[in-house]
């Protein structure tokens, strides 16, 4: 069993969960993920690591409360336990000295891109951070990014902070930065990954995305996470989760992510609302 050390909503509907998982914390690297189950009857879901502390033996994940399992996780109180935290899974993001790197995060990806940005900085890169959200009140961890970035730039759909609009404005942002960017790394929802990659393509900047398809085991056994990258079928859990954003077949991935949209709602509608079907 894995004990909850911290659990809170950091901005509306975005939750942070810190769990005691010493074996995972010891090995964790930027860009990796864990698979969790919220209760004995629960499904297995992958969540990117946003932070860890090898000494304390803890790992931190940040997630949007959108489905049945994330709803259960969000409701966890400190001191409670969950039955599965397994990892660290997937390959770490490749950290090298690229020169100047633009780290783009949105939603839960603001959390998961932070350790990547931190490691890139430590490897001697100039790091610019671009944070994307619907509105200014959805940003978090800014002081963390301030500490390691040359600059933190914002883009909001409603224009309450920074650029107004969607990530399609990326070319403008890059132009305004006035420095050549050697690499773009994107973490966040599939739409952000796709539109960010589309927007960076004309700039000819190598763009890497952390994919987040449905997974069950997370070790290459089930193959539900397969994606087409270039001409090849890849398993996001073992070959990824990072891929060249200009090579990913986005249409297929978006379809595959929606495969269980209908079922996702069923437990909400049918569960005994006093216990939500399990004891977590």
């Amino acid at each position, binding site marked *: 069993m894995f004990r909850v050390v911290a659990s809170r909503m950091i901005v509306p509907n975005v939750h942070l969960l810190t769990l005691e998982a010493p*074996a*995972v914390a010891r*090995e964790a690297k930027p860009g990796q993920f864990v698979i969790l*189950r919220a209760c004995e*009857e*629960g*499904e*297995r879901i992958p969540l990117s690591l946003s932070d860890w502390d090898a000494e304390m033996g803890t790992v931190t994940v940040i997630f949007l409360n959108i489905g*049945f*399992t994330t709803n259960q996780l969000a409701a966890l109180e400190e001191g409670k336990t969950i*039955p*599965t*935290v*397994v*990892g*660290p*899974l997937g390959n770490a993001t490749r950290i090298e000295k690229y020169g100047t790197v633009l780290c783009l995060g949105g939603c839960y990806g603001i959390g998961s891109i932070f350790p990547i940005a931190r490691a890139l900085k430590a490897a001697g890169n100039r790091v610019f951070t671009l944070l994307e959200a619907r509105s200014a009140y959805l940003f978090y961890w800014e002081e963390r990014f301030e500490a390691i970035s040359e600059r933190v730039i914002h883009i909001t759909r409603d224009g309450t902070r920074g650029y107004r609009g969607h990530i399609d404005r990326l070319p403008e942002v890059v132009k305004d930065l006035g420095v050549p960017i050697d690499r773009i790394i994107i973490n966040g929802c599939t739409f952000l990954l796709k539109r960010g990659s589309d927007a960076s393509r004309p700039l000819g900047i190598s763009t890497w995305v952390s994919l987040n398809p449905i997974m*069950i*085991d*997370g*070790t*290459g*056994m*089930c*193959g*539900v996470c*397969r*994606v*087409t990258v270039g001409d090849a*079928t890849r398993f996001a859990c*073992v070959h990824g989760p990072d891929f060249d954003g200009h090579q990913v077949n986005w*249409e*297929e991935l978006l*379809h*595959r992510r*929606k*495969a*269980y949209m209908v*079922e*996702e709602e*069923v*437990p909400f509608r*049918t*569960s005994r609302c006093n216990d939500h*079907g*399990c004891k977590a």
Partner: protein
Amino acid sequence: MAKTQKKTLDLVRREMPKQPPEVRRHNFQEVALGYSPELAVEEARRCLQCPKPACVSGCPVEINIPAFIDAIARRDFGQGIRILKEKNCLPAICGRVCPQEDQCEIKCVLTRKGAPVAIGRLERFLADWEAEQGEPELPPIAPPTGKKIAVVGGGPAGLTVAGDLIQLGHQVTIFEALHKMGGVLIYGIPEFRLPKAIVAREVDYLRRLGVKLVTNFVVGKTRTIDSLLEEFDAVFIGAGAGLPWFMSIPGENLNGVYSANEYLTRINLMKGFLFPNYHTPIKRHKRVAVIGGGNVAMDCARSALRLGAEVRIIYRRSRQEMPARLEEIENAEEEGVIFEYLTLPIRYHGDENGWVKEMVCVRMKLGEPDASGRRRPIPIEGSETVFPVDAVIVAIGNSPNPLIPSTTTGLEVGKRGNIVADEETGKTTKERVWAGGDVTTGAATVILAMGAGRKAARSIHQYLTSH
């Protein structure tokens, strides 16, 4: 030992009661219900007690078959189970899933008369009888040796190694990637063929013996083999063959196309058939095609059927070549699975939402025998056939996962990613590391995995007591 005596041949193989097909196709409960003591004794009495029993040579672990059958005939079931367990620590499982018709039973002299003794059913009977007697007594455990062994993978190979070594006084820890022990027995083989309570009983027995069971631990990720070797005196790798093959044909990544592993894991490990009480969804498809002709394909087909679908098995050769156990092919036929022999899918078409809606196949004919001795299927030109489907399950095989070899130094692997190990001892090319089961052979059988575990345990014990 019973004396050989002249008796009239009884050529009526006693049938094991089963749920009728029209009932069982709607539930996930076990199909075969097992012999009653009376039926078991009657069947056991058919055994001729041959002085040179051929059946024993057909069993990969050389169970003393005539002796345990004789014990049943004498109604000494306790003696029978003791004889079985000398060689096989998982008889309740092997009695259910062994391909007896290709192993022990095919060698039985009565096979020539069309009625081999039902060795597997008798094995199952004894194991079930033992379970009814309550918790089995624990065997004596040798004094502690102070040696520590790490077992990677909680399938039949790993469970066997752990059970054998703990009794010899060593400390044993099993590290399992999933959240439950059992390997394929838990995530692959369905409830209706192997009730999960039986697997749980075997795992619980190991716990009572003192084996440490660590789940949610992926060796190679959570910790490498090299790191385990710093803490443990020896490591046994029984990580199975869990990497699913696909055919690389157009449309294979459409929604509704599954690997057998995904489909079966959703149902068996995650209990998707109990959704929403269990939270992992499984679709209730209408028309399902299962590609392949092995046990895995039968299990997928019969699971999909139980979830309400019309199911077709698509197999590129003919019925004679199908590798699945005969009993399971017959069960699938009785339950109403449709078989399309000599048929090969070549592409899938999807709808506007990315869901598979059609499967295009070609028909085949059989040519000359290939390397495996089976006649090679050749496509018939102009024979394209379209099947409307809303799901396809690809069950054409698995190979070992590269995760462990790729994170371990000095571990040699073969062409198909299998870890190279000595057949007699399970020793790998790496010092203090042994391996056995599907991870060394590629997808094989439970009894072979168990047998490999036995041999490795013996070799590990020898090594530990001489070093």
